[in-house]
Structures are given as C-alpha cells and as structure tokens.
C-alpha cells in the first residue's frame, strides 16, 4: 500500500479517465483541442466556478476601492 509514483502511467487516473477523454473528445464534442473540451465541457462546473471567482474579485475591488464624490 503506497501512493503511486509521480506521473506513473499505471495509476488509476492515467489508466481510464485520461485515455477516455483523449480518445472520445473529438467524437463527443467536435473540438480538436482536448484542453478546451475538458475545461469548458467535461468540467463545465469548474470553469463556471472560476468565472465566478473572477466576477467576485472584480465586484469586491469596486466595493472596496471606488470612491464616489
């Protein structure tokens, strides 16, 4: 019982999740760029959260810094 080595090709994420995305990405999403299809399609919720973080940062900067006279 031990953690897999760094970048081990036989660790569980590298044996079924990654090949599934690499093989099926073009036929399921018609997007040649696997990174884009992963970020915006398979992991859409994650990118929605990232956008919300950016949005929150912008709104908080306005609330804290903006001075109306």
């Amino acid at each position, binding site marked *: 019982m031990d953690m897999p080595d760094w970048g081990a090709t036989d660790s569980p994420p590298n044996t079924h999740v990654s090949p599934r995305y690499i093989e099926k990405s073009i036929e399921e999403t018609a997007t040649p760029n696997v990174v*884009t299809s992963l970020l915006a399609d398979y992991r859409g919720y994650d990118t929605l959260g990232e*956008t919300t973080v950016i949005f929150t940062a*912008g709104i908080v*900067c*306005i609330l804290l810094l903006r001075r109306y006279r």
Partner: protein
Amino acid sequence: MINRFENIIIQTISRLLIPPIQLYALYVIAHGHYSPGGGFQGGCILGASFILMVIAYDIKETKRMISEKINTIFIVLGVIIYSGIGAVCLILGADYLDYGILNKIFSVSPAKARALGTFGVEIGVGITVMAVMVSIFLNLVSGGEHEEAQE
C-alpha cells in the same frame, strides 16, 4: 497627482497597436477550439489593450471608449451568459451545462452543439475577464476616483 503624459511617439504607436491587439484577442477567444487559448487568455489580452490605452492616453479618454457603467454591466453579463447557457440546457431537458441538448435549437449534431455551447461559454468568460481587468486597473491606478492617475 501626475499630469497627463503627452508623448507623440507613445500615443502614435499605441494608436497603431491597439486595434491589432484587440483583433488578436478576439482571435484567441474564437480560436480556442483549435489552438491554445480561450476565454481567460483572450479576455486578458482584450483587457490589456484597454490598459495600454489608459497608460498612453488617460483615464478620461479610455472612459469615452468604455464607460464605467458599460464596464460594470460587462462584468455581470459574462457570468449571465455562462450560467444562462447552462440554464437553457436545463430548460430543454438535459442536465445543467450539458450542451449536447442545444441541438434542439441549432439543428446540428449533438457533438457540434457541444462545440457551439463551449464557444458561447468562452465568450462569456472572455467578457467577464476583460471587464474585471479594466475595472481593477482603473480602481488601483486612480485610487478609486477614476479621474486621473495618482502618484
């Protein structure tokens, strides 16, 4: 207070450079399917073009191009586009952000509909990132007054 910095070389070069920078930013957003890039990167480049405008000219000149009201609306609009596309998928009967169901609207195959949904999402991300970059820069550089840059 720093006075308006007039330099004919910087202003001319900026005037020549800003349109290609903005065009390149739109290219990066639209070409995210085929090459490295996407909403975050393209939005950053688009925001940088407005920041270059602030540096080369001044804040008043920039706010004639993109007013504070429009910019704040853009901040919200991007997130609304993103979550709106997700909600449209929900209304059409699929899961939230499951773009495949968008083929009911666009009459293409589900795979192409996923590509279109991804593209719409990237546009939303790009709008939000651009507006937030400009807003944070303007607030920091002018001390929240949005009039002229402070020392």
